[in-house]
């Protein structure tokens, strides 16, 4: 029996007539199973890809200091104008401040509102903000659904009222997210195609990536909104995913959208779009890394490892032969001078 929850109809009962609405309306178990497999595969590949990327960056050696001011973890007074502990005499006698609150606030502003883009590239900020806001909403919707499904809230024996309310929230948030993603991606596509500034740095894949987002989320949103009577609600579908219930009926368009979205999730970690991972390193590990070299710190061990590396640079003045370490090269004059 369909129930009305706010503006959107949420199907609680699954009385679908499998096969009664062939083609675009809803399908038999094959599509459902394919969608489930795509979701699981997409999730696994996404997580594996993310872990691989983290591993690649985390195992690189300790780099030389290369920070850029302002640093948000400085004292709030200094962070406001970009000052550092170097502004005091004998800074090494004073403890290093770690203003985690300041750092957290800057992160929130950057992640949620794309502060850098807003400040330095306002024209691009609007489409990018729409796009990223959409992503966050979709992530919230998926996360909420997954948690609820895993916690059994959506189980048959669970509360129908709770499932219904949760389902309506998820639908509103998810559809809004998809609309924002598609709008933002379309605007980004227009910008990238029409602005000569992007010409030299735009690759075929950049256009493909935006089209991929547009296609996946257009299909998911339109597929869900135009689903036939008897098609599964979000709650039912989520429950079905967790239990691999092939009896759940979904529309072809919705299913195709989910398969595309899953493929997209699997693809992202292997592209530059994984900048949500890179950004941890570029900001925290490079821009904001002002850790001091103090005796007894783990930094000293990493420094010793680095200085023992044996370069093979070929230019004569380096004096590298693959046997001498960086420490030895630094301690010796260039071969031309020795002569």
């Amino acid at each position, binding site marked *: 029996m369909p129930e009305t929850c706010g503006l959107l109809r949420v199907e609680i009962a699954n009385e679908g007539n499998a096969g009664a609405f062939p083609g675009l309306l809803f399908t038999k178990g094959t599509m459902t199973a394919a969608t489930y497999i795509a979701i699981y595969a997409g999730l696994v590949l996404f997580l594996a890809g993310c872990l691989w990327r983290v591993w690649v960056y985390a195992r690189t050696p300790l780099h030389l200091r290369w920070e850029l001011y302002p640093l948000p973890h400085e004292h709030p007074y200094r962070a406001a104008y970009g000052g550092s502990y170097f502004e005091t005499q004998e800074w090494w006698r004073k403890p290093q401040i770690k203003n985690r609150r300041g750092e957290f606030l800057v992160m929130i502003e950057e992640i949620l509102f794309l502060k850098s883009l807003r400040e330095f590239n306002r024209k691009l900020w609007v489409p990018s903000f729409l796009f990223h806001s959409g992503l966050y909403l979709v992530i919230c919707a998926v996360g909420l659904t997954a948690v609820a499904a895993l916690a059994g809230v959506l189980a048959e024996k669970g509360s129908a009222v709770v499932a219904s309310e949760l389902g309506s929230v998820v639908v509103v948030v998810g559809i809004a997210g998809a609309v924002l993603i598609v709008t933002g991606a379309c605007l980004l596509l227009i910008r990238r195609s029409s602005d000569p500034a992007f010409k030299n*740095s735009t690759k075929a894949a950049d256009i493909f990536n935006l089209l991929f987002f547009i296609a996946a989320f257009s299909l998911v949103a339109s597929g869900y909104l135009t689903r036939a009577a008897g098609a599964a609600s979000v709650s039912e579908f989520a429950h079905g995913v967790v239990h691999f219930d092939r009896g759940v009926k979904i529309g072809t368009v919705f299913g195709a959208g989910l398969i595309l979205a899953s493929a997209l999730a699997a693809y992202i970690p292997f592209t530059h779009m994984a900048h949500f991972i890179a950004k941890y390193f570029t900001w925290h590990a490079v821009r904001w890394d002002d850790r001091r070299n103090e005796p007894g710190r783990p930094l000293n061990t990493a420094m010793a490892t680095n200085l023992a590396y044996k370069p093979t640079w070929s230019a004569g003045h380096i004096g590298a032969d693959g046997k001498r370490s960086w420490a030895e090269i630094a301690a010796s004059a260039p071969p031309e001078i020795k002569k």
Partner: protein
Amino acid sequence: MSGRVRLRDVSRPDREPLVHLENADLMALPDPLDGVEKDHAWASLSEQVKSKCECGLDDTCAVNIPKPKTREEEEQLVARFLTGLDKLFDKQNNWGFLQPLLLTMEHCTGCQTCAKACHIFEASGENEIYRPTFRAEILRRLYFKHVKHGGLLSAWQHGSIQLNWPLVARLIELAYRCNLCRRCAQSCPIGCDNGLVAHELRKLFSQEMGIAPREIHENGSMLQLKVGSSTGMNAEIVKDNVAFIDEDISERTGIEIHTPWDVQGADVLLIHNAGEIMAWPENPGAFALILTMAGVNWTMSSELAAYDAINYGLWYDDAQFSRVALKHAEAAKNLGVKRIVIGECGHAHKALCVIADRMLAGDLNIPRESYLPLLRDIVLGGKIKFDRGRNDFPVTLHDPCNMVRLMGVVEPQREILRALSPQFREMEPHGVNNYCCGGGSGFAIMSGNNFPDWRFHVSGRKKLEQILRAFEDCLGPETPKYLCAPCSNCKGQFRDMISYYDLWQKNRILYGGLVELVVNAMADVKPGFIEWEWR
């Protein structure tokens, strides 16, 4: 301006420049340089240079790479480039920058936010070859193809580019069209660093192919490691020169000073950019006077390289960088000083205080700091009396990128100026958002061919605009104005650029350091330390 350059043009086999700049294409300047007709015509490259050197990028030539004579020679050079490219992404060879470089290679979205922050791109009239991503995009495509061994799928994903000698030759020049100020990196939403790309390319060319501008290699770091200073001064000469400065300053100020040399166990080892001793002797003289009057227990060192704070390796070569940093630390260790204080030299600040921090271990890790907090504490401490009325003329402050954006020393110099200069006014933007002087990363000392024309018209243009706007209410010659630049390299750029545009003669804009302003305001010193004479 030439038509819009495409990325693939860098592989063009002809040796013709990709772009030609006209003054009309450049960013407009304010009064008194408003109008194309008020700008100077560019000097052209000589036919001899064009015929002998690779000048296929733009209207100038910074590195003077000889043209290979045969196809085989070209192929050998390309092969060496590829070997160096591999090493750039290898931890044994490039542990110091591997992580930020990988991140920059793999995550740029091409959003062009960096382009809006780049003073060179803006000043050039947004010429495509100076776009920060132009250089980076070439390296990125080479990285995915030749280091990651990408095939067709990679080319589709990351783009492709034809590697040949003309590309390498143009890339060498292009690595020297960036001031390494990293303003682009500061604005990047992802945290990619196109300044780092230029830095790493310079390293590849120097460390693998032995290619670097003569001014920063042979006459720079090599000379410093051989003689003791890139100025060519050995210890004896530097001591003589400083003795002369002491004498001159004592006479001018009425206060007797003697610069102490090689004092064991001193509190402070002061290291100047030795260029100051040669070109602006009043600067080390002012330092000596201030430290003497403040009662600081200080010394200078006559050990090899330890009386010259410069470390040009910072701009192009990690091995040269490490060697010089080590010399500075060893000198301090041998003297048993408590700390090293760096004088008015921006890149020396970053080199020794920041970058070398993860190289100097054990007893070589001697505390290092900027002179600015010390100077601020002296000025505000009350031990020395000041008469700020002596500095009652318009003063603006240039923020050297290496001290400010890259080290976070922002306020001490401002506290001093607020205390001592009643007419102090900021440039906009300033502090960590400042613009480079245009001479950064070695440009200020690179004067070969017509390169100075490029740095006055393009890399220095944004700063010139800032200076003129800061003084727009008093541009007339009746008001002497002081551009305070607490960095030797920046002063070199200002000396040349202000002279080029005749802004001292016509508008009475003088440049100088911060310590000179401090001494000028000292109540116990004879008035008129700043002489308002061009030098």
